[in-house]
């Protein structure tokens, strides 16, 4: 083995963890927002530009804000306002739902770390 071969192997070994982490393990920010309302087909929204979404549910209209790659329920016609109090979601797999109004939203990425979230 020549000196150049050893340098080559060293470079590859040093590079591999970075490549692996970057492509497969990174807790990257979410890429899309998936919104479900009742039994309707899910709707996928991009996380830019910033905007408000008005979503109809059986109790009335829920308003979702997209801002700077994050999202949240701004208002919803439910009693307890659990969805609104959940606040901003920014990371992949973030989930908020207004169960009374049958609306849910999930942040997803192209390379999700998990197949399901337990809570």
């Amino acid at each position: 083995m020549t000196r150049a071969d050893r340098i080559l192997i060293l470079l590859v070994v040093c590079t591999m963890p970075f490549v692996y982490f970057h492509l497969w393990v990174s807790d990257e920010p979410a890429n899309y927002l998936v919104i479900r309302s009742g039994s309707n087909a899910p709707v996928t929204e991009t996380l830019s530009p910033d905007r408000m979404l008005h979503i109809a549910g059986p109790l009335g209209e829920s308003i979702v804000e997209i801002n700077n790659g994050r999202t949240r329920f701004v208002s919803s016609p439910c009693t307890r306002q659990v969805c609104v109090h959940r606040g901003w979601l920014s990371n992949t797999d973030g989930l908020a739902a207004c169960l009374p109004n049958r609306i849910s939203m999930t942040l997803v990425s192209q390379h999700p770390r998990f197949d399901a979230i337990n809570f």
Partner: protein
Amino acid sequence: MIEHLTRLGCLLLALAVSGCEQPKDPVFHDQFFAFGTLVEVSLYGVEPQRAESISKVIEKDFMDMHANWHAWQPGKLSSLNKHLANLEPTTIDPSILPLIREAGRLSQLSGGLFNPVIGNLVALWGFHDNALPVGTLPDSTRIRELVEQAPVVSNISIDDALITTVNPSVAYDLGGFAKGYAIDRAIDRLRTSDVQNAIVNAGGDLRVIGQHGDRPWRIGIRHPRDNSILASIEVSGDASVFTSGDYERFFEVDGNHYHHIIDPRTGYPASSTTSVTVIHSDAATADAAATALFVAGPDQWLSTAQNMGIRQVMLIDKQGTIHMNPEMRSRIQFEPGLNAEISLSAPLQ
């Protein structure tokens, strides 16, 4: 040297390209609302049209079970409760008989910490209403009365399908168990439909069968106090992962937090636990055990788990200490930067 650098460049390019060209996700996802929560069905390697059809059947199953098992809306379980309150013998509908029997068995194994017949107590706390109480607590005298009446499953006898009781205060509320039982029925349905690799996730409690292609399913466990991920596990074959937490259904009065997991011994929300995560083969047992271990708390969870045949438990107490048995510790991966004390128990046999 140029030849070596060329080799290196080709190698890195191949690595980068292999990272970019991942195959399209072969998992079908569907969601629907049932049992007051969001249910997600994930099927691996099933042709989309067939997967859609199977998921619709599961959705209908969930809707039927929810209607039949509801503790306070008109249905088979609420009708049964009326007969029990009047001490009238009645015949249990075949659609809920296995559920009632299994709830009784698990309650006895838990030493009554999972108690499916404290429906009157749960109702008194307001957890039978979609809108939870605002600014008021139940009357403490009434709580004490209901605790002293001591409704337990041993007050009930079931002969064939005929059910009788000697205690009029028993009232079934299967909230700590029905979701798990329903998930088990959904997995049965998937297997009879020849689906071997799937997740059924009802509001964060889930059962997994098979795996995701050539790798296990990856499950993230959410931190009980924020939106972050606390830990993760890899699961393949057949396993249920259930968590009971004080953050699921609650209300606040004068800055104090009152959640939905009632300790049948005191009549008040169990006070020493933040969350319990259980891994077990069937979802119904995992569901009942998560409730029982939450009530048991850091002092009694180990003996209760032993009695219920549970082998993998993680309990987070009110101080943030993580209690777990060695088998659970060996399969769970905490996220980097975890700042919590871990208390390892004796092994569960």
